[in-house]
């Protein structure tokens, strides 16, 4: 029963989603969309599991003063610090929304003739709304996100440039016929893509274009078709319970 019920649920939902793919009907589409929404919500809630895992492993390492415990402490401080900052931002967002509503209510309750000065209640509500909006805009959370997280993320991504160079250096060694072909194709494509390539030989851009459009596309499509058939096979195995990676427990 422990295995059968999840397999039946998977088969039912899987077959229904396949039907949705082929059939055009409002009812089928509505139910399928609803099921997809359930999936999204369930996955979103699962973030709690991740936070608990992170806290458990790193807190234990810090308390037991294991190797590199300092890094783990920094991680915990950052995680809980960011959570707190996020909470504060959330509160301020609510406060700003409340102030905005109060302003709208004050404007509705105190109609002003055209050209006349607004009544003190409206002025006060507007000032309160502006202050609340500013407080919601400039928070520790926003500051850390914009000034710390985004640059760090970009830094890690930028490492890719150096890694591409080192991986290319290792790969482009003509040790065999295949690697020699790779080297020749890569050199033509690289030279053909920079302005100096055209200066060296006017046909370099044409040649690189031919390599990218024909042999490269053909190879990619071959892999794509194989992968698509593999995906269909794996999908059917999972839907009909022949392979059950989701039930390993």
């Amino acid at each position, binding site marked *: 029963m422990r295995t059968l019920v999840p397999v039946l649920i998977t088969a039912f939902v899987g077959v229904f989603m*396949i039907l949705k*793919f*082929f*059939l*055009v*009907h*409002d*009812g*089928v589409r509505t139910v399928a969309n609803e099921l997809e929404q359930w*999936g999204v919500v369930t*996955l979103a809630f*699962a*973030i*709690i*599991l*991740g*936070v608990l*895992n*992170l806290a*458990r*492993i790193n807190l*234990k390492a810090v308390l037991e003063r294991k*190797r*590199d415990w300092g*890094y783990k402490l920094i991680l915990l401080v950052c995680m809980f610090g960011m959570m707190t900052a996020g909470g504060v931002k959330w509160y301020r967002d609510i406060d700003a929304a409340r102030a905005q509503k109060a302003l709208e209510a004050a404007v509705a309750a105190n109609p002003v003739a055209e050209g006349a000065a607004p009544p003190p209640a409206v002025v006060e509500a507007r000032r309160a709304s502006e202050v609340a909006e500013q407080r919601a805009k400039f928070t520790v959370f926003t500051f850390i996100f914009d000034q710390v997280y985004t640059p*760090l*993320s970009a830094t*890690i*991504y930028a*490492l*890719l440039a150096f*890694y*591409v160079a*080192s*991986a*290319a250096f*290792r*790969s482009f060694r003509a040790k065999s016929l295949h690697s020699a072909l790779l080297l020749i194709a890569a050199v033509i494509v690289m030279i053909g893509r920079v302005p100096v390539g055209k200066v060296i030989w006017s046909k370099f851009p044409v040649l690189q274009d031919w390599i990218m459009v024909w042999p490269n596309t053909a190879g*990619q499509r071959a*892999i*794509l*078709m*194989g*992968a698509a*058939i*593999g*995906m*269909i*096979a*794996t*999908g*059917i*195995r*999972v839907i009909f319970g*022949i*392979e059950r*990676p*989701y039930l*390993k*427990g």
Partner: protein
Amino acid sequence: MTTYRRRQPAPVKRLRGAALAALLTFLTVPAFASDRILTETVTLFRIPASWLDAAASTDADRMVVKFDVTRLPVLIVLVLFGSFFLILQMKARSGAHLALRRLPGIDAIEEAIGRATEMGRPVLFIPGLNDIDDIQTLAGVSILSHVAYIAAEYDTPVIVACRRSVVLTMCEETVRQACLAAGRPEVFIPNNMRYLSDDQFAFTAGVNGIMLREKPASCIYQGCFYSESLILAETGFVSGAIQVAGTANISQLPFFVAACDYTLIGEEFFAASAYLSKEPSILASIKASDWLKMVVLPVILIGVLLATLAAFEPPPKDGSPPSQRQRAVQLLKEVL
């Protein structure tokens, strides 16, 4: 007197069957195609008004269930695959041996775990970046099950780094179950199942940290990867680990091929769990996908031939209908 017919070798039979199926596909598809070639819907059945409430029964769209003809090729592939699978499964159940070609990348996984055992260091496994709604993640977790089983037999710890918390839970149970199956439950270390971050580059930084601090002897990447693939693989190379990757993301395959020792490319990655499990029904599905490829291949060849011929034809004048050959090429493009 008994007469003996010479039995044709299996590959010939298979080729004949595949060619026949390809021909059938090729002939069946035009039957459904109209002038607009695979761009319409056909009514499958009408729902009786008594099945619906009064408001719904006045809505014409809700009364009719239509079939999307643009998706007909997918249906044909599904039906063909299902038929092949059933035939092969029956064969497998009757005791026939379903042979699969050797995949060096999968053999290398065992080698990688053996190396980790010799060096007394852990194995690092990453089941891709996506959540469990991605089929590549499910395939990756299936491979993890085998990796964890072999590692448990060798008494080697496996570190699993996850980007999604649901995947983490699944991996945790997978490794626990594999250790139990190997008869070594004590090898399972819960703290080696690690959720790092939902953010792509924070996760990458976390994995790089594990590689450089804990020095795993083998890094196995199986799943869906994006631009972080080369950052991970190069860091693994710098740390001196043997690396086996597998993904169906075409854009990331060159990076893995360049930086890893072995790479499972596309379909190999999906076949890996079947290859490792040796279960007849799973092997049958892999053979079925091979048969399906044998069907697709002649269709592609016919398409290439027709496209080449159509290229020599003058383009149709304004208002005049395209030639039969151009229509056939257009149809094949949509089918493929």
